[in-house]
Structure formats: structure tokens, C-alpha cells
């Protein structure tokens, strides 16, 4: 019924302006198309974009003992509407070393995690991509399987290993390499190890899908022209896999900056990562405006890499579509 109504409209619309549009989808579904588009578009606007406006608004607010625990920016008293912006939260963030250090250490941890993931993940992705086709699928599944299991389970698995009475310490003691247990848990190192473990699949997958498209004949040509394997890798493979490296790095770095669960479960109580700060401000201190300001600064830090990643991916898709 609906389709018939649409098509009736279509033919008339098409007759009215016969020569302006090209693709048949556009001609066939002008109204239907915008209707269809409006559903997911509206959802995202309402539940993804608009919320940031509220975050922005509340970041300029004050804490109040009320429900919700913040003061409205616009107040009306005796027919006078007054707007009160509070920049205090931001002054805190840039003034107080606690926040500043938290941002720095988050960026640092995310950066190191990205680097280690790249160094560890590249050879794995390369090997799978170069494997015979029959084995490739199984190998990729093996590598991605932990990704499908719960994130929490993956973090928890390391808690048993890194614990003071944990397996690693037990093993080292049994081997006589150490005399007393090492403090592994709740250190910078434990956070680093678990972050690499948790984010590694996000590096391997884009690298694999890039490397698998690499034409093996190029490597043969390079060898034929006198390059040794490592030269071939540096001059042919690596430059050609640039897109995969960038995509994988972004996919690890951006979410890692705001990681909360890992520093909470295996991190030190003193050195804070910004995701944890946000969580504490919100849940423990009930300081919503401060949490909102922390969020806004984090968004400001991450928006450029997100847009960069997005633009690259769109370009890659456009190329794929043109083929």
C-alpha cells in the first residue's frame, strides 16, 4: 500500500522535473527516502548529539544539594531572568594538578598502549594475512575469539595472575628468581599490561583487513628487484599498510584515553586516569557539573582524532564503492 502511494507520487514528480536527478533511488523515493533517513537520523540527534549540549550546559553550572544535584543556568526571580555561568569547574581543571596530571597520564597510557599494540599486533596480523587461505579464517577467529568474550572477564583473568599471591609471583618464587612477592598488581605496569591485552584485537582486525588485500606479487617483484625481506617490509609492505596502521592506532588510542574499568580494577589508587576521575566526580562526589566539565575537556581532546579517523574511513569506503 505504502509503496504504491509512493510510486504514484514518484511518477508525477519525475514528470514535473524530468532531467534534474540522476540515480534511480533518488528519483524513485524522494519522500520515502527522507522518511527512511529520518528514523536513524532522529535517533542519533536525540540520543547522541543533543546530550552533549546538556553536558556543555551543566559544565557551566554549580553543585547544589538537590535532585538533580546542579543549579539551573537560567533562573527566574521576580520576573527577571538571569543567566549565571560558572567557569569555576574549568578553572579547577586547568589549575589543579590532579586533573591536569590525570589528563596527561591518560594520554600517556593510551599512547604507550597504542604503540605496544602496534608492535605486538602487526606481526600477528601480517602472519594471518599471509597464511594459506584455508587456515586464515580459523586463525582470525582464534585471535578474535577473546574479543567476543566479556571485557570484564578479560580484565579479571589478569587479576588472578598479577595478584601479590598470584600465579606470576608464585611461579617466580618457585623458580627462585625472587625472594619475596613483587608488587605487580595496582601499578602502572599492571594497567599497561591489561590495557594492551584488552585492546589488542582492535589493532589486529583493521591491520589484518588491510594486509590481506596486499598483492603478494608486489613482494615477489620487490624480491626480484633485489630487496631483502626486511627491505621489502620497510619499503613495500609497511607503506602500503599505512591505512591499516592509522585505523588500528586510532581505534586503540581514542577509547583508551577514557578507559575506566582497567585503572579501577588493576590500577594504583594515587595515579588517576581521566576516565576514573570522571567516574569518581560523578558517582562518589556527586559533583555532576565537575564531571560534565571533565567530559567536555575530554571531548575537546578527542574530537580531532575522531574526525580524522572518520574522514579516512569515509574516503576508504568511497574508494571501495567506486571500484
Amino acid at each position: 500500500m505504502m509503496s504504491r502511494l509512493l510510486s504514484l507520487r514518484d511518477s508525477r514528480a519525475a514528470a514535473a522535473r524530468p532531467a534534474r536527478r540522476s540515480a534511480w533511488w533518488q528519483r524513485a523515493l524522494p519522500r520515502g527516502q527522507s522518511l527512511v533517513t529520518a528514523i536513524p537520523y532522529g535517533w542519533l540527534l536525540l540520543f547522541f548529539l543533543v546530550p552533549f549540549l546538556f553536558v556543555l550546559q551543566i559544565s557551566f553550572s554549580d553543585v547544589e544539594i538537590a535532585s538533580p544535584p546542579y543549579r539551573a543556568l537560567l533562573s527566574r526571580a521576580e520576573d527577571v531572568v538571569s543567566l549565571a555561568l560558572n567557569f569555576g569547574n574549568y578553572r579547577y581543571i586547568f589549575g589543579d594538578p590532579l586533573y591536569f596530571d590525570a589528563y596527561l597520564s591518560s594520554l600517556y597510557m593510551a599512547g604507550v598502549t597504542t604503540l605496544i599494540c602496534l608492535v605486538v599486533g602487526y606481526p600477528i596480523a601480517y602472519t594471518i594475512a599471509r597464511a594459506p587461505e584455508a587456515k586464515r579464517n580459523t586463525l582470525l577467529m582464534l585471535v578474535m575469539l577473546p574479543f567476543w568474550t566479556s571485557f570484564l572477564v578479560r580484565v579479571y583473568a589478569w587479576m588472578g595472575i598479577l595478584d601479590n599471591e598470584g600465579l606470576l609471583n608464585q611461579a617466580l618464587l618457585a623458580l627462585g628468581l625472587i625472594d619475596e612477592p613483587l608488587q605487580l598488581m595496582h601499578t602502572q605496569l599492571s594497567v599497561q599490561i591489561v590495557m594492551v591485552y584488552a585492546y589488542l584485537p582492535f589493532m589486529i582486525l583493521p591491520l589484518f583487513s588491510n594486509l590481506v588485500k596486499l598483492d603478494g606479487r608486489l613482494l615477489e617483484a620487490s624480491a626480484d628487484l633485489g630487496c631483502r625481506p626486511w627491505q621489502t617490509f620497510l619499503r613495500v609492505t609497511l607503506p602500503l599498510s599505512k591505512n591499516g596502521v592509522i585505523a588500528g592506532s586510532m581505534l586503540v588510542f581514542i577509547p583508551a584515553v577514557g578507559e575506566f574499568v582497567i585503572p579501577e580494577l588493576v590500577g594504583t589508587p594515587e595515579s588517576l586516569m581521566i576516565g576514573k576521575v570522571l567516574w569518581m566526580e560523578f558517582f562518589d562526589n556527586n559533583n555532576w557539573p565537575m564531571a560534565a566539565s571533565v567530559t567536555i575537556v575530554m571531548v575537546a581532546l578527542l574530537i580531532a582524532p575522531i574526525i580524522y579517523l572518520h574522514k579516512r574511513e569515509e574516503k576508504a569506503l568511497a574508494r571501495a564503492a567506486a571500484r
Partner: protein
Amino acid sequence: MAESSLHQAAKTAGAKSYLQIVDVVKKFGDNTVVDHINLSIAKNDIFALLGSSGCGKSTLLRMLAGMETPTSGKIILDGEDITALAPYERPINMMFQSYALFPHMTVAQNIAFGLKQDRLSRSDIAERVERMLELVQMKKYAHRKPYQLSGGQQQRVALARSLAKRPKLLLLDEPLGALDKKLRQQTQLELVNMIEQVGVTCIMVTHDQEEAMTMAGRIGIMSEGQLLQVATPGEIYEHPNCRFTAEFIGETNLFGGHVVEDEPDHVCIHSIELPRPVRVGHGITGTMGMPVWLSLRPERVGVSRQQPVVSGNWAAGTVGDIAYLGGFSIFHVRLDSGKVVKASVPATHWREEAAPTWNEPVFVSWTDNDAVVLTQ
């Protein structure tokens, strides 16, 4: 003014022609892909649009199917203006280059798909599908899925599917392009037979001149969005109307020159690449001294050790390369002017004597009726 004369032209042509393409233009942005095309096609014609990739032939075909809308111009089929109709409203069906068979449907379901859109009764659909399967000799495979078929079988299913609705016009997009060369030659005539059995007007698009020459009754040569020549395969080969066509269809030797003698029954052309003016036994519409091109097919060029007795149409040279092709050989003869002339000589020509060899001095010659003058 221009508008009304166009209408006039359309009306008079409409009496004879089944499909008319009237001054159709297609632009993508600033890029003109189809440039003022006019074409009429008679009922039950098999017409081929021939051109290299990017010449606009596929866009023209897609405009006929309705997948693209012309920027300006009209398409009239059987007296009805179909320019603004959506693809699903046109009595036109297309066989896609990739065949575009629905992978999740069986052969029979594929063929029935278009008929179901017309809300035909179950028994009618079954009967029509049956007949189509018979036509393309695919009855045994009715319940197979497309991926279970060979390329040639898929092609036949695609044809059956596009013929099932009894379209007024059948479009073939590179109909044999996805088949390998051996299969292609065999399939060409089969395809023509099937189309003629059904008796449908057909336009095909191809870049393969052999395919066009074998299958089509008339050919349109396209280049850079323009239709350069429309004629039968024989006319196109023997009497190309421009340099592009002459070079595009088959091999030819081209000489630049100008008219030095212009009579109703013959002309003489002087070219600096040839030692003396060439006499051509047909008149041209042109003036004395105008620059022209001379096209001379390699099989029209004779090669001999003796100086030819014909008056002006010969030149001396030496043999450069020889391409031995079994039944005949192609001699690349370098003339004194430096121009290389290709001559295709049948092997039987050298019964009396041994064929000339590299660097041997020879003469090339041709008759008045062998060369064609191209004025554009």
C-alpha cells in the same frame, strides 16, 4: 523555433521507426557524457552501439532502461514518450553485463520475477517460465541456483529473464563480455537466433567490434559521447565516414593529404607520404585543396617485386617487419617517405616465387576502388 523543428523531425521519423532517441544529452556535473544523440531504430532491428569504454554508450543504454535520466532530449518508444518513466514502468528489459541474477532464487524463480511484478496468474507465470526455459534450453536446470551454473548457462538465464516479460525493447549490456573468447564466438549466433525467434527489437552495447559485426543488423559508432556513423556492418567497414571509424573498425593505413583533382566520378589526392597523387574512383562532397584523409585497408594493398603497371596508385619501399599469421602475412613496408604501409597478403599469393624477406625492395599497389577518402 528549434523546438518545433525538432518535433517535426520526431513526427516524420515516428512513422517508420519504433524507437526514437531525440537530441538526448547527459551531463554529469560539467562532464558531457552523451552529446546530442539522435537515433531511430526500426521494429525487430538488432542494433549495436559500438565504442571504447567511456564513450557514453553504457550511459545511453542506462537512459533507455531508465536507470539514468537524460539532462535534455526525449526517448520515444512505439509512439509513447517514456523519458520520464521510472525503470519499473517501462516496457523495456535489460540483460546486464554481470547478468545480475538474483543469487537467492532458482533459475525458474529468476525468470518468474518480472512476471510476478505484473501480477500475472500462477498458471500464466508457470507457462511463460516453461516456454522461456525451452527457448534457452535450460529446462533441466530450472531448480538450480545461479552459482550452480556455468557462465554460459547464467547468460542464457539472464536472457530468458529479460525476455519473459515480452518487452517492446530488449537491451543487452556487453552481452558476452563475461564469457571467455572461445565460448563467446559460439554464443554470438545462438544469441541472435534466440532473439530473432522471439522477434524483439534489440539494442546492444559492446566494445567488441567482432561481436557487433556478427550480431547486429546495424551498428552505431560512438566516441566521446557522439554518434559518428550509423550503418550496416559492411558499409561501416568498407565506407567509413570519418577517420575515427576507419581506425576503430579493423586495421587501416591512413595518409594525410589534400584534393588536387575533384571530378564527379573520381578524385585525386596528393599526400606528402606518397610519391605521386592517388586516384580514387568515387566523388566526394568537398572542394579543391581541402585537407582529407585517405584510408587504405591492408588487405587491399598488393605487394610485388615487379613495378606495378597501374598508373598512379603505387609506391616503392623496403620490407620492414613481417608478421606471419599462417593463412596470410602482414608486411610492414617502409616507403621512401618514411611512412610504413601495412599490407596483408594471403599465403597463396606466393605460389610462384618465395615471399619477400626483410630489407628486400618491393612495391605496394592498389586500384582506384581500394582507397576511401575521409573528409573528417
